[in-house]
């Protein structure tokens, strides 16, 4: 079976003007010559069933007009030379998805209170089905995500991919990097063992030495002048509501710009210009000239 036939019709690759489906699929002309036998009820039901996904998609599409957008995204061309370096961004996104899913499961069992947090982690590790496994995935997934986001940034930097017209996407990416590091910082306290507790105390103190906003930032993080009972709840809220929300929104913007502007080609590649045709710049001038004759 061809790959194309699995995909429901509204999401198939749109045919180019020259290569329509005529002759490939069911040709209406055949129907006129010899009408097929009336299909049995079972056959009709089978046909209905196979068409159902396409019908549902068509129904949605009529109301959203999303299929054009989707096919445009799916079948847009990525430039020549796109290689494995270009998977680092989507790999970072995937690590984030792993963090989201494992984080949701951890949140079902975690208690963000200074007196119970430690015990709830013990409970997750020892009693909950696959608890330590999911906890471990979340813990190490953060390292993997940080590594991947730095690699993705290094690729973008060395390939000069942040230059025109993708400057804004670089800025969004740097903000995402900072937010990811903030996630790592706020998440580190949550297990509430000695190491995470004291590292957070020092970390907040480091923030406090900053000029002007430093002390306020520290007070905000601690929920007061002292590292107290509410500090953990505050870190928890920031870690699982505030920053993830911002990250998801910015990933949306990041991906929108990637789809709109396209991914870059490796910087050492040069496009081959068509040999016979006039340079593109002249073609453009010609198109403009068609509209209105130049005024004299």
């Amino acid at each position, binding site marked *: 079976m061809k790959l194309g036939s699995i995909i429901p019709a509204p999401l198939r690759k749109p045919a180019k003007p020259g290569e329509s489906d005529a002759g490939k699929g069911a040709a209406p002309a055949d129907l006129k010559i010899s009408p097929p036998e009336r299909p049995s009820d079972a056959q009709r039901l089978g046909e209905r069933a196979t068409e159902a996904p396409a019908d549902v998609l068509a129904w949605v599409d009529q109301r959203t007009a999303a299929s054009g957008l989707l096919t445009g995204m799916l079948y847009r061309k990525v*430039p*020549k030379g796109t290689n494995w370096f270009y998977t680092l961004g989507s790999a970072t996104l995937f690590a984030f998805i792993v963090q989201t899913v494992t984080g949701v499961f951890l949140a079902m069992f975690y208690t963000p209170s200074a007196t119970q947090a430690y015990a709830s982690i013990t409970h997750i590790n020892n009693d909950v089905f696959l608890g330590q496994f999911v906890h471990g995935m979340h813990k190490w997934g953060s390292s993997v995500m940080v590594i991947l986001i730095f690699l993705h940034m290094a690729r973008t930097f060395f390939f000069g991919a942040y230059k025109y017209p993708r400057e804004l996407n670089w800025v969004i990416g740097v903000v995402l990097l*900072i937010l990811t590091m903030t996630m790592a910082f706020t998440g580190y306290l949550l*297990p509430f*063992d000695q190491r995470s507790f004291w590292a957070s105390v020092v970390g907040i103190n480091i923030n406090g*030495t900053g000029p002007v906003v430093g002390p306020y930032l520290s007070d905000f993080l601690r929920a007061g002048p002292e590292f107290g009972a509410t500090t953990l709840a505050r870190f928890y809220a920031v870690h699982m509501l505030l920053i993830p929300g911002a990250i998801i929104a910015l990933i949306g913007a990041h991906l929108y710009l990637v789809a709109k502007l396209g991914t870059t080609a490796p*910087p050492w590649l040069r496009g081959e210009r068509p040999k016979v045709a006039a340079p593109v*710049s002249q073609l453009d001038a010609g198109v403009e000239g068609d509209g209105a004759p130049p005024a004299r």
Partner: protein
Amino acid sequence: MKPADKQAYLEEYELLKKKGKPFFPYAVLKDSAMALIVVAVIVAMSIVLGAEQGPKADPTTTSYVPRPEWYFFFLFELLRVIKPPELVPLATVGIPTICMALLLLLPFYDRRPERRPGRRPIATTAGLLTIVAIAYLTYLGATGGSPTEIEMEVAPRYEAGKEVVVGTGCLACHKLGENGNDGPGTELTHIAQLIPRASILRSVEIGPGIMPSFRDLPPKKLNELADFLASLD
């Protein structure tokens, strides 16, 4: 970048795009393979390395290592590289903030059209040096341990205070004789020459600057600690 350069880039990009392949299924296939690798690595790390708990957080003690997650080592190590107290804010906030601003604004000061790494010597060198610096600082952070004993002969009446210093993890940030990490904290070997006992005690209780406060230590331990440190001249 001049308008002509922008136009030239867009034309060049169109040409390369025409030669390219559709995102689906070609790029999607690579991305999916990479996603599988990512999950496999995370699962393997979780199974092999696990998620063991350390001892429960306790503000009143002792024997802890205030170490951040490894990917913050390079920031933490800046504090050890930059020693003088008056420069500490530079290390804690100044340099990271400047680096963040430089990173964020990169496309606005690097406006030349050239993209090949070999023809952007300044950018490529700066990038490589940054990677080397971060790797080196991370290595320093990973190898700098927290000694758990003090090899120093002291009078018997100061032994108790010495134990408190060891047990409270002071050596994670302070050098004392041959032991401890030289930074971010002040060297304690001759601390009594710098400040009197009352100031030592107050520093331990307040936690000036980035130092944590140890006010939750029992008063007896605090006094033993201050006696010991005040004897170091």
